[in-house]
């Protein structure tokens, strides 16, 4: 049988759904509340397990003149000390600009220069301090606008030589690693026709993911030359691929590498792609036969894994007096950090979409991915959209107020709808944005002024829209294997990751719907690249949509095999057969009922005692064949880079203490168009969790840097993430369902989106309450109070 996906329209449209659209509890719930769930660091590897410690650069920018490992090697219990000279290999996901260990220079404080492998962690730590590195310090650059100029120190003299994907446009001889230009219409004409033009600059700092599980990888290069990695990763296959490419000079091939990913204790993009894991792979090859563990401390988690990139954005918008948007010009300088192998694609995604979820005839977007001497930027829930949306949705609010228009009415008037032309020329997909706007406005009683009994407190309301498309290569694909067991239960293998979002449960519901087997009888197994089929990565909020289609296809293929064998033995036409309650039924013979467990392994017996059929298995694959990254580099016109956008709206009722600036969220609502909520309760989980994470980025989270480029607050003591005391009084999650035609049962992704409107809606509520506009994140109590005092002085 072929494994292409079959049309499925009868199931999505006409049949009442049994398992999809319901909220069965998570299939991983029991494991997680009982302590049975195993994460990488919970596995035991025996007495020969070794421990690695990294030697880190103390300078933001310096040449490495000399490394002396002799004193470290002399420490009893040290097995191996390695440096960049041992692994002179570049690597990277979209651009190979990064190194396993620093080569001739370091580009951020904390960069890995060498590593010690020892018999216990204490020995490794002590010995790492004895590695002597001599540096020649170079001037660093931290500001992305200055870094993009010709006066700035050059961080990557070899930029022109780095292999990269064809949709990146590096500028040789500068720090501009990629420049995405999007042009639609003529913005100058739009501004000339506008009644009002507003221009301003917005700043967004860096943020940390703060998954509670730190990065950890255990790697074993066994005596037969196979490399097995147990990795806390969102991207097992991509990890295998990037590592196989980078370490090919050591003789490693894809076939020789196995990546196993058990449960992951939170990712948020931070465990996507490859960061510290490649060190684990390299170190394993240096101590063949011994598993070696590399686990980052919380501090390293902050300064040497991906960070969310900083942004300085210049926004200019022109409108008619009636509120019609005529032109949007958005120039973004991204502080992408020392290496942009992943982060440049964040910039690229923003560069295609930074006009926001609006119908705009004239668009000019410049997204510059700029090297700086801060840690590598990379994917973080929202993937560029949270960052540009702070400025854009702040700006739209200000435009509306200047026009004397209600900010919600202004957004409603310009909101993008199905069939509108996107910035890069394609048409907008089906979208429930207007419904999202109306439902959020109603939920927070938009238009009604609220007050406080406390004379020192004022109350404002804020609103913001959001949208986001998965940012994927055009050939990002998914696949799935499915097998029945003797009792009619099912095992499914996929290589998407359960990061907490509920992916395993949703995949089980899709299989359940097709095969009429309840989710609790379906086991979805976490990835192992030796056994589970390919998945690009669990990022981009695409696995429900993309891997869901592969899983659906596998289930449909199994169903067809079931019907075929029943037809052969019982004679019923295949198109008269259907599944209900774990049994095959027939539309033309209501008395026929054949339980799956009776034959999905054993087969069906015929009159002569021989059997037909065999163990029922299915496989499915999916690739978004309609996408393309090929477009005009000067305009981005001509390609089809995004599969679709998910849209939504959010609003907040914010109480502010005028004396202290302290803010308190009375109520917040977020509506997202999920297409079809396969599990509504899990979608609500994404809304509530993502919104709280987004609110923290605007209210208090903030990476602080010393003048030398050192992160000053790499702990939860000094970098505050929300505790159970820091949540809004009331969160109203709203699910809108305008089906995505190609999604499984109409579903599209929602995981990242729920962070995206949080920051601007707070800034907009502050202006509503106090009349002050804060244009840099975070919008802290301190900043609000100081702005008030300045205004009153």
């Amino acid at each position, binding site marked *: 049988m072929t494994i292409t996906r079959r049309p499925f329209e009868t199931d999505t449209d006409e049949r009442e759904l049994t398992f999809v659209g319901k909220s069965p509890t998570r299939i991983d719930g029991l494991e997680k509340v*009982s*302590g049975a769930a195993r994460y990488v660091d919970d596995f035991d590897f025996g007495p020969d397990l070794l421990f690695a410690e990294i030697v880190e650069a103390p300078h933001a920018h310096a040449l490495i003149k000399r490394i002396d490992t002799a004193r470290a090697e002399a420490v009893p219990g040290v097995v191996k000390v390695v440096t960049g000279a041992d692994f002179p290999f570049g690597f990277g996901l979209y651009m190979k600009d990064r190194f396993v260990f620093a080569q001739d220079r370091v580009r951020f404080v904390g960069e890995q220069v060498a590593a010690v492998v020892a018999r216990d962690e204490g020995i490794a730590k002590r010995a790492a301090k004895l590695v002597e590195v001599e540096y020649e310090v170079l001037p660093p650059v931290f500001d992305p606008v200055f870094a993009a100029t010709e006066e700035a120190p050059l961080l990557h003299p070899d930029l022109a030589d780095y292999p990269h994907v064809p949709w990146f446009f590096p500028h040789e001889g500068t720090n501009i690693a990629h420049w995405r230009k999007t042009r639609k219409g003529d913005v100058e004409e739009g501004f000339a026709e506008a009644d009002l033009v507003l221009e301003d600059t917005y700043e967004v700092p860096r943020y940390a993911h*703060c998954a*509670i599980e730190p990065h950890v990888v255990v790697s074993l290069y066994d005596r037969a030359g196979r490399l097995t990695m147990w990795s806390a990763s969102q991207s097992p296959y991509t990890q295998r691929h990037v590592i196989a490419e980078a370490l090919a000079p050591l003789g490693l091939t894809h076939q020789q590498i196995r990546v196993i990913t058990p449960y992951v204790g939170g990712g948020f993009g931070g465990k996507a792609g490859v960061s510290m894991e490649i060190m684990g792979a390299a170190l394993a090859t240096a101590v063949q036969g011994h598993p070696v563990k590399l686990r980052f401390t919380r501090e390293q988690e902050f300064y040497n894994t991906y960070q969310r990139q900083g942004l300085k954005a210049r926004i200019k918008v022109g409108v008619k007096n009636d509120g019609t948007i005529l032109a949007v010009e958005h120039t973004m300088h991204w502080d992408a950090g020392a290496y942009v192998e992943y982060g440049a694609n964040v910039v690229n995604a923003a560069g295609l979409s930074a006009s926001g979820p609006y119908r705009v005839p004239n668009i000019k977007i410049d997204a510059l991915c700029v090297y700086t001497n801060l840690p590598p930027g990379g994917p973080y829930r929202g993937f560029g959209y949270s960052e540009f949306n702070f400025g854009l949705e702040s700006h739209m609010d200000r435009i509306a107020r200047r026009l004397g228009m209600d900010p919600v009415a202004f957004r409603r008037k310009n909101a993008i709808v199905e069939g509108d032309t996107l910035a890069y020329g394609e048409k907008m997909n089906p979208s429930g944005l207007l419904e999202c706007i109306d439902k959020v406005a109603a939920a927070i009683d938009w238009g009604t002024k609220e007050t406080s009994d406390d004379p020192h407190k004022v109350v404002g309301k804020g609103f913001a829209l959001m949208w986001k498309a998965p940012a994927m290569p055009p050939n990002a694909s998914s696949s799935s294997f499915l097998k029945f067991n003797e009792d009619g239960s099912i095992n499914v293998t996929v290589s998407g990751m359960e990061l907490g979002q509920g992916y395993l449960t949703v995949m089980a519901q899709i299989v359940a719907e097709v095969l009429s087997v309840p989710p609790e009888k379906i086991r979805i197994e976490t990835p192992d690249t030796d056994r589970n089929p390919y998945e690009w990565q669990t990022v981009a909020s695409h696995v429900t949509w993309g891997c869901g289609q592969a899983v659906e296809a596998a289930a449909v293929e199994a169903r067809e095999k079931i019907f075929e064998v029943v037809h052969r033995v019982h004679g019923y036409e295949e198109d008269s057969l259907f599944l209900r309650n774990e049994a095959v039924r027939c539309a033309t013979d209501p008395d026929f009922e054949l339980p799956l467990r009776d034959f999905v392994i054993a087969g069906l017996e015929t009159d002569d005692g021989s059997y037909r059929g065999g163990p029922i298995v299915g496989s499915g694959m999916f690739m978004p064949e309609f996408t393309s990254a090929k477009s005009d580099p000067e305009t981005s016109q001509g390609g089809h880079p995004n599969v679709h956008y998910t849209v939504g709206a959010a609003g907040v009722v914010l109480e502010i203490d005028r004396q202290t600036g302290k803010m308190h969220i009375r109520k917040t609502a977020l509506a997202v168009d999920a297409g079809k909520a396969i599990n509504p309760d899990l979608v609500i*989980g994404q809304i509530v969790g993502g919104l709280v*994470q987004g609110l923290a980025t605007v209210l208090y989270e903030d990476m602080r840097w010393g003048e030398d480029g050192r992160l000053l607050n790499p702990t939860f003591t000094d970098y505050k993430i929300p505790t159970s*005391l820091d949540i809004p009084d009331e969160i109203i999650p709203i699910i809108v369902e305008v089906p995505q035609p190609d999604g499984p049962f109409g579903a599209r992704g929602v995981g990242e989106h729920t962070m995206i409107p949080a920051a601007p809606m707070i800034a907009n509520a502050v202006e509503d309450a106090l009349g002050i506009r804060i244009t840099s994140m975070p919008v802290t109590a301190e900043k609000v109070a100081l702005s008030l005092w300045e205004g009153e002085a």
Partner: protein
Amino acid sequence: MKLPITMIVNGETWPLDVEPNEVLLDVIRNRVGAKGAKIGCERGDCGTCTVLFDGRSIRSCLMLAVEADGHEIITVEGIPENGVLSNLQDLFISHNSFQCGFCAPGIVLGAHELLRDNPNPSRHDVQHALAGNLCRCTGYEPILDAVMAAAEEARS
């Protein structure tokens, strides 16, 4: 120089020889094999290493193993009785209270301690009791809902 200690972990007696500087969390995980307690920050900020120490929740990353000599420790593995999950654990499942689940063991223990000491908590009491257990996924709401539901069921 190793020191002999004896601790009771989840009802089982564990005589162990430990280094004076060995951290309790590491001994629980690597010597006793109770992996429910997790390593999250190693400085008492995140609460994922929470265990009950003579019935009180503590950060096991901040205690030395020698201090546990003669004391009783409960990890999440010790919460079920006769292999049956607590009602609170069942409610955490039915409320989909956890996503990635890494914080879950610590929160299960902290919430058990709260409900034992205060069977009639307000929502704010629950928020306060769990304020030292960081969760990055859920926004805490489904966790608080489950604890409040457990308290309600215990009253009825």
